């Protein structure tokens, strides 16, 4: 494994020596840092940003009573949610019931290990980074199925099954579309994929347009964004939760801390999806200005994609489960393979 910059930085900052133990300590601290930043981000997104964004779409004001811009709603919501009673129904199947929220939240957090966030924040950079990130992100489906099945509730059960059907249907187009990027970049390593997007594609009126894959292959970008919406379960693909149909889907029977974990896990999942899109298609942390601004650009990009998911949520109807499966298997899958083959031919002919 190539040592990632963040681990190196921590090691030198703390004056830790060489050796596997010291590397482990440094990596642990780095992971702690990245994980907490992501959790904090989800904490900002869940109780505050999401409300504000939705309110803007629906002509409302939303949280504005506690603190500046209502920001103190975040600690207030945290206290409120964590202080609630944890109700565990009689017939639930433990420990699957208890593990499900952990699996969901953990799978999303694990993915961030290989995401290059710029400004030297990059925890690990294995050669198979892209495979790893898809592998851990798809663990979430197991969490959803566990939660749905173990809850001993028919709504949860329906939600769990829907979640799995949906994730399988949309994971394949997602990975196949990502494979077209791999054909361009010729590598699975995240840092290399980012590096491959730094060249200038063309210049319009003195502005250099970088060769981000969103510009090189916009078709793949659109496909990936759609599949990603389904992957993170947002409108028009929020059928696994579908509040007006099956109450809250797989999380119907969860309360208190478990609910918070599910909820946070979902938001981290959205951000992970956004981070993958950013890395694969939007040049990762690249942007104008000095390199140390990388993290700013990175965050701006993933928040922009988060905003997009919220926009869809406010404005688009939900498709029915059969239509959702049909779009996945008959539409996106075919298109993504077409995209893969075309990309392969173009790259093969041109390069």
């Amino acid at each position: 494994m190539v040592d990632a910059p963040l681990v190196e930085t921590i090691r030198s900052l703390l004056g830790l020596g060489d050796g596997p133990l010291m590397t482990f300590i440094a990596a642990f601290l780095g992971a702690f840092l990245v994980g907490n930043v992501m959790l904090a981000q989800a904490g900002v997104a869940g109780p505050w940003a999401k409300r504000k964004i939705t309110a803007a779409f629906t002509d409302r004001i939303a949280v504005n009573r506690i603190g500046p811009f209502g920001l103190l709603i975040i600690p207030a919501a945290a206290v409120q949610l964590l202080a609630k009673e944890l109700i565990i129904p009689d017939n639930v199947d433990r420990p699957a019931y208890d593990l499900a929220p952990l699996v969901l939240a953990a799978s999303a957090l694990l993915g961030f290990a290989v995401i290059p966030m710029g400004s030297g924040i990059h925890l690990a950079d294995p050669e198979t980074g892209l495979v790893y990130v898809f592998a851990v992100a798809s663990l979430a489906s197991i969490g959803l199925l566990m939660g749905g099945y173990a809850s001993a509730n028919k709504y949860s059960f329906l939600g769990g099954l829907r979640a799995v059907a949906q994730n399988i249907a949309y994971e394949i187009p997602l990975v196949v579309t990502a494979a077209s990027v791999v054909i361009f970049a010729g590598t699975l390593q995240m840092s290399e994929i980012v590096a491959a997007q730094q060249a200038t594609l063309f210049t319009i009126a003195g502005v250099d347009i970088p060769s981000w894959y969103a510009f090189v292959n916009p078709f793949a970008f659109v496909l990936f964004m759609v599949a990603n919406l389904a992957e993170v379960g947002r409108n028009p693909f929020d059928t696994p939760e579908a509040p007006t149909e099956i109450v809250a889907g797989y999380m119907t029977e969860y309360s208190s801390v478990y609910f918070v974990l599910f909820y946070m896990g979902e938001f981290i999942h959205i951000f992970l999806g956004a981070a993958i899109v950013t890395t694969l298609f939007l040049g990762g942390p690249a942007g104008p200005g000095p390199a140390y601004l990388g993290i700013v650009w990175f965050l701006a990009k993933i928040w922009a994609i988060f905003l997009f998911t919220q926009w869809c949520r406010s404005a688009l109807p939900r498709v029915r489960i059969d239509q959702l499966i049909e779009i996945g298997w008959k539409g996106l899958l075919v298109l993504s393979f077409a995209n893969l083959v075309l990309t392969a031919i173009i790259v093969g002919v041109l390069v």
Partner: protein
Amino acid sequence: MSTQKEPDEESETEAVVSAEGVDYDALEEMLGDSVLGRETHLNAEGFVVRADAVQDALSTLKEEAGLDHLSCVSAEEYEDRYESIYHLKQYDDPTNEVSVVVPTSRRDPTSQTATPVFKGADWHEREAYDLVGVDYEGHPDLRRILLPETWQGHPLSKDYNQTKPQIVTLAENKNPLEEHKSAEDSDTMFLNIGPHHPATHGVLHLETVLDGEQVADVEPDIGYLHRCEEQMAQNGNYRYQIMPYPDRWDYASAGLLNEWAYARTAEDLADIEVPEYAQVIRTMSAELCRIAAHMLALGTFCLDIYGDFTAIFMYAMQDRENIQNILEDLTGQRMMFNYFRLGGVVWDLPEPREEFFGSIRDFLDGLPERLDEYHDLITSNEIFQIRCVDTGYLDPEVAKDYGVTGPVARASGIDYDLRRDDPYGYYDELDWDVVTEDGGDNYARLLVRMREVEQSARIIEQCVDLLEDWPEDERNIQSNVPRTLKPEADTETYRAVEGAKGELGIYIRSDGTEQPGRFKIRSPCFCNLAPLDEMSNGELIADLVATLGSLDVILGEVDR
């Protein structure tokens, strides 16, 4: 009434029921020996029919005379008998009315069911059994409908002890968590949707059997919001005490439309004239209510399709809010208006009048733009279309069989609107159209509501024009109505108006006192909800939710 035209000698059999009215003598001949006698109700003639010949009589009236709309079934216990009255109308011309009165003995209150003739009779008869205690022989499923199954006695019967409380504990009632019978040996799953569920728009319980995600059977279980509205109305006096109740039936902004139902019936009963000026105010304010009710229907329907509180829901609530502000200026209340009085309205338009008219005109001017935005956001959205087109299909014949009315019927191509077909108020003086769509699906029902909003706006605009120029000395808001109203004993009438959800009718029998002897509400939501199974059987659970939303039921009106 103008409908009760004298018998037409020339066209006896061909047009017993025609545009000129109902030929009651010919009808009586047609019904033959099942008729025991004749009664005269204010709205129509009533044929007294033998208890064992109900189906014959009704099917003759339906098939041969063309009275295809079983509007209402009201039952009552008298000193010497039980009586069920089937109020029949014609979808083509609802002023053609006939009542079929079925008396049974007190000792054995059994009469033949009408369910094989009119499917809509199913629920009506269950209600009559539940509240009054008439037994309908041959009824497929004669269970209680509004009260819990373990309830003792029939609350509207004479020997019922109304002061004794009855508490039905959860354990005594049907256990909602009980294993479904067929779950063991089949692939189906039983699912309780409601009484507390985000999609039921109130406390409705759908007992659903699912095959995968497909709906194999759905049975609405209603009555959670039963508040004895009929009983309460029977304990109030006509003049003052009943009017506040209608606001609480369809409480989702349709208050004035409901008040009009009572006002029309009681004015008919006591022969009260309403000044023209008051009629215009009534028409205008009722149409404002209709827009508000349709906006709520639109917003909540989209909530079912979109999930979560989306832009459309909030936009619709905003428009409804604007109307509520106008109505608050007019009536002093935002929802429970209590604005109509027998013989008129309670007070005149608010001063300064120009400001009030200005606020209405502002709203109307902005409405086309808002509707365009709704069309952009909803009806032209392709995902919305694939969700709504061809789902929840309601066949017009099925709809008529169930007595479906209002926007739901009009979306199935049934051209039936009491404002035009059985005119009251100021509607027949104004220029507007009845909206129909042929789709019969969820999409058509939404379109009908949206287009009806436009028509209501037209009506309101004409009313405002009229009111602005009304001569100052003719602004008479109420006619002279005696302090106490005591209609002659045993006067019976059934009158309906076009409420927000359909035909909202009231049957009153006076007993010579200042309180009604029997007060029966014909709720459009009650009738519109009955065909839910036919509409959603075989479709997915998401369609069931959408269909329920498109029916726009208000449980306060279903359960009363």
